[in-house]
């Protein structure tokens, strides 16, 4: 973990509430891996918001990384109002990374809403490691879809304005029913109800699945004990989402 500052060198508005921010920060881009996140201090000289906010590292290109930013409250709103040239304090890279190993040949990425954030960089790493990638993206509506750097995308929207009309899990279920594949691994990120539904599906299908959690965090680096996730194995108690996660095998944890 580093405590550093980053310059905002680019900003794209995707919809009213969705932005890409490009942050120049070689100290972080040098070592970050897919699945890791940063804690950003929205306003350095301010107590509003008091705590930093966590964001997945979405993409890395040379000295800069990107975050996909969805405005949901005061902190994300203020961050979205930053301009190119502004500086923010950043802690990172934080958390564990997605596990890419030889147990699988095809990766199925499942994203709900802004949960797509960690998948551009994951896609890149998966392909570098020679994996097949199938991507399923779900959003509330068309304007909230983000597919940059993703491959083999199948999209779904809750309101049917684009792609499959229904939830992303329904879309994945339909796909799995019609496909015979060996050595699969799912990677998922999104709202808890989506992960729960996916949990039922992968349990039923006995599939390997890793999820990236967005538990609320105060510190992001293991000192507050605020971000606990309950482990299925009751002897083990709790894990820290920020340090032991944010990526967990779905069958390890209680969602």
């Amino acid at each position, binding site marked *: 973990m580093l405590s550093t500052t980053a310059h905002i060198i680019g900003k794209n508005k995707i919809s009213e509430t969705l932005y890409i921010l490009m942050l120049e920060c070689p100290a972080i881009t040098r070592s970050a891996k897919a699945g890791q996140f940063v804690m950003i201090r929205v306003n350095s000289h301010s107590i*509003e918001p008091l*705590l930093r906010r966590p964001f997945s590292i979405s993409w890395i290109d040379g000295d800069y990384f990107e975050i996909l930013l969805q405005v949901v409250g005061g902190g994300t709103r203020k961050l979205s109002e930053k301009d190119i040239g502004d500086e923010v304090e950043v802690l990172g890279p934080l958390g564990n990374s997605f596990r890419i190993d030889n147990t699988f040949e095809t990766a199925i990425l499942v994203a709900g809403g802004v949960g797509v954030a960690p998948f551009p960089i994951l896609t890149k790493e998966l392909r570098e490691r020679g994996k097949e990638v199938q991507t399923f993206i779900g959003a509330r509506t068309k304007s909230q879809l983000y597919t940059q750097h993703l491959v083999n995308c199948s999209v779904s929207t809750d309101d049917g304005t684009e792609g499959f009309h229904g939830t992303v899990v329904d879309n994945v279920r339909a796909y799995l029913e019609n496909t015979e594949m060996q050595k699969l691994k799912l990677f998922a990120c999104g709202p808890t109800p989506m992960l729960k539904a996916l949990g039922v599906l992968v349990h039923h299908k006995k599939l390997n699945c890793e999820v990236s959690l967005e538990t*609320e965090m105060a510190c992001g680096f293991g*000192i507050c004990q*605020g971000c606990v996730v309950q482990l299925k194995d009751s002897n083990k108690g709790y894990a820290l989402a920020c340090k032991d996660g944010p990526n967990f095998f779905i069958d390890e944890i209680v969602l």
Partner: protein
Amino acid sequence: MLNTTRTTFKLRNVEFRNRVFVASGTFGYGDEVRNIFPYEKLGGIITKSLSLKPRAGNPPPRIVETSSGVLNSIGLANIGVEAFIHAKLPVLRTLNTSIITNIAASSVDEYCAVLERLESVNGVHAYEINVSCPNVKEGGLNFGTSATMVATITKELRRRTEKPLIVKLTPNVTHIADIARAAAHEGADAVSLINTLIGMAIDVHTRRAKLSTVTGGVSGPAIKPIALAKVFEVSKAVSIPVFGIGGIATVHDALEFLLAGASAIQVGTMNFVDPLIAVRIADGIDEYCRINNIEDVGMLVGSVNANLSNSILQTWL
């Protein structure tokens, strides 16, 4: 402008490098930030409260942001004294700073057992006793709300150690000075305050408490004025040193606590926001002293120009 200011601070036989510490539960066991933290710039680390057995802590959600503050119900999750001794102390011994171990318990016997276990090993420089815990023998009454219970704990622990003993007080009481006096009377070397204030937050949409335990403790800048008043009150009431804690976010805040009567300060919640903040504050205090030609940081302690020591009780609110 002075070249150097004396920063050290002594409790019993232990000399701390300076008067800036990190508060219990807000800096883990001290080793989480190992690769970025200049430990030699700190007075010392107060570790997460340790109990005799490991505690899993409370179910999530455990932490919520409030206006200028944080509400937590971690529930003193900790690895227990044995694991601390085996997994953490060997690392802590290598850090170039003083280690103050904070102890929590639900009975006087448990406090004693944890301290005795720690007495048997090397690497702990002092103890801080967290008395904001429910006493199981008294139906869960919080130890820290009773001068008698605090006196008993202090007395029993004092008998068992020659190391500095710091009693950490809860602010959730009518007369905190009485509790401080009880600790001082039984031989505490210092008191530290404040621990968190009891608080609550509700999610209006789900109509549920935001914390799994309904209530928790409030910390952060929001509580600073309250903490400062308590530090002022206690430092007038006892002659042992006071560690000031509560919402310290800037050098300015730390100076306020010193002026109010704190001999040293602890940074808590703000470590989450900036893991290096305690170091920045220590540096800032030095700079302030150099600029103002103050030879010893200790000269600031209690130097606020305010002699209305009974103002706290006489206030019309």
